[in-house]
């Protein structure tokens, strides 16, 4: 195959021009669609948990259950708080009675007395849906009942869900559960009905210590986004490649 310098330069210039054309240049949007596309691009919800500040009062779990109509006494919850007590011999004691709904008022862990002098460290870790960028739960849904919105929140269509439970198995964080009343899969959606009205999620609202905060990651002036982008934050189970969007300050290695 022969190729003169002139041909090569011509082809290269053409290829550069074509590849520089944005794909959207070929799509004609209506005014509303264009507006929606721009508006959506300005929001990507994220979440910051400061484990240093959490006192394990469990108000967030209580508020979440009330706000989102999760049966109060059923052993299911959209968010929960875990307690970790690491003793000086290196053993880790973990519990989350009723998901921490009634707080942690006893020093016993699973009926086990732990000598306070033997405790190396103790902390509380709130958990909730990570609103992943690559949600494993959405990938496995056979009917298209769960999906990611433009602002990054993963929602479940209660009309469309057939209750097969694949997503509950697929989530590496175990945030999904079977809703005992609606008979469909359910999970945290950052209180989508609140955040789209400019309110904070119920758990953020009810946290007295600022341990839970919501961020718009597309807004560089958002104070919480600034913390996430400039401070040392960690995510849970990064190795699964799900790109979780709940960030943790002060996350300990013992947290699973």
């Amino acid at each position, binding site marked *: 195959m022969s190729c003169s310098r002139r041909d090569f330069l011509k082809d290269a210039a053409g290829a550069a021009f074509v590849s520089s054309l944005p794909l959207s240049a070929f799509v004609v949007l209506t005014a509303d669609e264009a507006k929606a596309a721009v508006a959506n691009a300005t929001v990507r919800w994220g979440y910051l948990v400061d484990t240093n*500040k959490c006192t394990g009062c469990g108000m967030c779990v209580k508020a979440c259950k009330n706000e989102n109509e999760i049966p109060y006494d059923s052993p299911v919850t959209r968010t929960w708080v875990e307690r970790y007590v690491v003793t000086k011999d290196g053993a880790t004691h973990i519990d989350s009675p009723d998901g921490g709904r009634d707080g942690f*008022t006893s020093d016993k862990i699973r009926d086990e007395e732990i000598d306070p002098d033997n405790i190396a460290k*103790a*902390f509380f870790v709130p958990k909730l849906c990570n609103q992943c960028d*690559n949600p494993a739960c959405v990938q496995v849904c056979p009917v298209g009942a769960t999906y990611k919105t433009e602002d990054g929140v993963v929602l479940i269509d209660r*009309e469309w869900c057939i209750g097969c439970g694949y997503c509950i198995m697929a989530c590496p964080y175990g945030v999904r559960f079977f809703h005992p009343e609606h008979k469909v899969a359910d999970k945290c959606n950052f209180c989508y009905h609140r955040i789209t009205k400019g*309110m904070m999620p119920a758990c953020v609202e009810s946290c007295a210590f600022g341990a839970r905060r919501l961020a718009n990651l597309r807004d560089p002036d958002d104070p919480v986004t600034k913390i996430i982008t400039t401070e040392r934050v960690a995510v849970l189970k990064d190795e699964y490649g799900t790109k979780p969007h709940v960030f943790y300050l002060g996350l300990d290695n013992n947290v699973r």
Partner: protein
Amino acid sequence: MKRHVLHPLWVAIGVVGLIFFARLLLVPDDFGVHGDSFTYNYHRLGNIEEWKDFPVKYQGTATCLECHNDNARTHRRSPHKRVQCENCHGPAGNHPDDVEYLPLNKERAMCLRCHADLGYPASTARSNLPAIVDRHHKRGRECVSCHNPHDPREDVE
């Protein structure tokens, strides 16, 4: 082709056609790919609005302050100001339109959520709060019978 091949073939084609017809009727118009990914954005568009319409229950302290000045003012200058009204008083919902009285929780267990001494090291946030050992301090009594919850620095007269 012979009839014994053609007949079942027509039946099979008919069944497939029926399935497509049923799909046309049963799948809503707004079901499809709404976004840039078939994997993540394949859904019924109307569901987003359904979630947005979910009723809000916790209205926030600012809403409470619109009417309740008395206790709220005391509360706003006390160490308890970080605690939202609705944490103890219950979610406002449509109060006062539908729900005249909110389910106030003044149980001892409510206070113990923060103020039970668990004996953890100072690095635990919990250890920086004033705390009691449940089994030693006024067992079984309601905290609010002595301590004013709106300003815990004051005693109840």
